């Protein structure tokens, strides 16, 4: 927090916003989500579908609140109050057991400049930008190879907040977009704004330490910049472990579970998100491997071909 405030202050005082590098703007963006109070509406557009969402964050009575609410359709919301997360389902039939994530969204990874620069050419577009009535700086991440997508960020010139994010495929085809339509950084938020009404159906979660288990799988190859985020694996349940790969911008989640049914290799995608699954047999045990990530299909296919039993990649 202190670092974020210091950085924000430093950049505000400097006035020469355009002089900052793309990485510095991305750092500001990351810090802004952890330091600013905000109340905004954004549109999430992916695979021809569009949803408007409201996101709010504020420090109220010493408690850090954050919420994300679907404004269309079923109005499911996720509310965080410090380390507790509540999912709110307005209607009983929408209630989904296990919807609450295992961990809240508080602990952001630090931006890894070296890894990002291995994978992307990062630059700042020297042109006036305006998003949601805010002056913005456009930062482009152009992939250095075919194993990841391009990203375009528009961040608030004053405070670094993310105002717009495009994920682009080959030929700059737009795969996914998030764009704020309105946002205020002086919101009048109260604790009651983060309290579900009595008639809604809620699911509560209080953070516990994730179950860390020995990792039994490794990759014989990884795209430049990608590495395992955790050196161990995370146990999701008695049968499933999770690994996580990242190049600092794109992430690939790897789920390995024991199974008794062989499945053909399958790939599917939704916008920028692709998923693949295949069966792997090790001795007399059969495993179902599922990968989900915002990477091109060929990246996932190669990763699925080179995942091996064993625990190197240390």
């Amino acid at each position, binding site marked *: 927090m202190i670092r974020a405030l210091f950085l924000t202050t430093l950049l505000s005082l400097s006035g020469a916003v355009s002089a900052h590098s793309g990485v510095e703007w991305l750092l500001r963006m990351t810090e802004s989500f952890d330091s600013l109070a905000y109340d905004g509406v954004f549109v999430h557009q992916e695979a021809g579908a569009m949803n408007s969402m409201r996101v709010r964050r504020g420090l109220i009575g010493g408690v850090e609140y954050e919420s994300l609410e679907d404004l269309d359709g079923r109005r499911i919301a996720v509310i965080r109050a410090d380390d507790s997360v509540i999912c709110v389902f307005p209607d009983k039939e929408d209630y989904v057991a*296990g919807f609450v994530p295992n961990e809240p969204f508080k602990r952001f990874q630090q931006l890894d400049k070296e890894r990002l620069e291995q994978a992307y050419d990062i630059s700042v577009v020297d042109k006036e930008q305006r998003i949601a009535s805010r002056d913005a700086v456009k930062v482009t991440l152009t992939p250095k190879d075919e194993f990841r997508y391009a990203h375009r960020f528009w961040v608030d010139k004053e405070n670094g907040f993310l105002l717009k994010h495009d994920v682009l495929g080959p030929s700059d085809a737009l795969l996914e977009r998030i764009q704020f339509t309105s946002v205020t950084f002086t919101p009048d938020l109260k604790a009651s704004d983060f309290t579900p009404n009595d008639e809604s159906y809620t699911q509560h979660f209080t953070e516990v330490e994730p179950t860390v288990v020995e990792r039994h799988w490794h990759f014989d190859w990884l795209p430049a910049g990608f590495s395992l985020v955790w050196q161990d694996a995370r146990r999701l349940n008695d049968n499933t472990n999770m690994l996580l790969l990242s190049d600092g911008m794109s992430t690939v989640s790897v789920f390995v579970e024991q199974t008794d049914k062989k499945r053909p290799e399958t790939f599917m995608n939704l916008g920028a998100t692709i998923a693949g699954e295949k069966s792997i047999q090790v*001795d007399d045990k059969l495993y179902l491997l599922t990968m989900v990530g915002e990477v091109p299909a060929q990246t996932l296919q190669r990763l699925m071909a080179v995942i091996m039993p064993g625990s190197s990649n240390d």
Partner: protein
Amino acid sequence: MSKFYDKHGSSSDDSLSAFLDNEATLADIEQLLASDPMHLAQKVDRYQDIHQALQPDAEVLISDSGDFLAQMHRKMEQTTQESNVVVFPNQGALATKPEKLEQVHLPNLENNAPHTKRAFFSGLAVAASVAFVVVLGGNAWLSDDQSFSSNNIVTAQTSTIKPAQPLTALSAEEALENNERLQNYLRQHAQQASMTVGQGMIPMAKVVGYPQGSGQ
């Protein structure tokens, strides 16, 4: 058996002909599964009539056109019985040193190994009415350079993927099968992505925005 073509000669007709000739490739079957089943059944009936007129003593092609889709599904299952499972031989305990990649039997990326249309994320796809796309093809997507046209938002294809088909032929059973597991994985992924890329709760938008439940 000779092939039958109607005057329109569409690709689905070719696929149907190949299927009736027991020469259908996976791509043919995918093409047929994506077609209107009633339309296909009518074509089968028509082909059957022509076939019977030309070769009265020949075996019946398909005894019940209403069973046509079921036969295609069975054919598809047969086609995908090939080696889709990666076997790591003589590995011993998992923690032991692994064989090198070239020493194990991996999926055949050098030919068009079958990739099957399945209900992956299907519950989400059906529920959200969005265009989940099954990516098919083996080596083709690693070597061909074929991009897809786009208007505004497009489904994710890289310049090397082909072909892709909308999930129009999912059975309800298939749609239900993986839904809960895959939704859970998508949530887990979005949650971890939110912490990795530093955009607050925003990466969760894709999860919160999806209608939930498997029966929609």
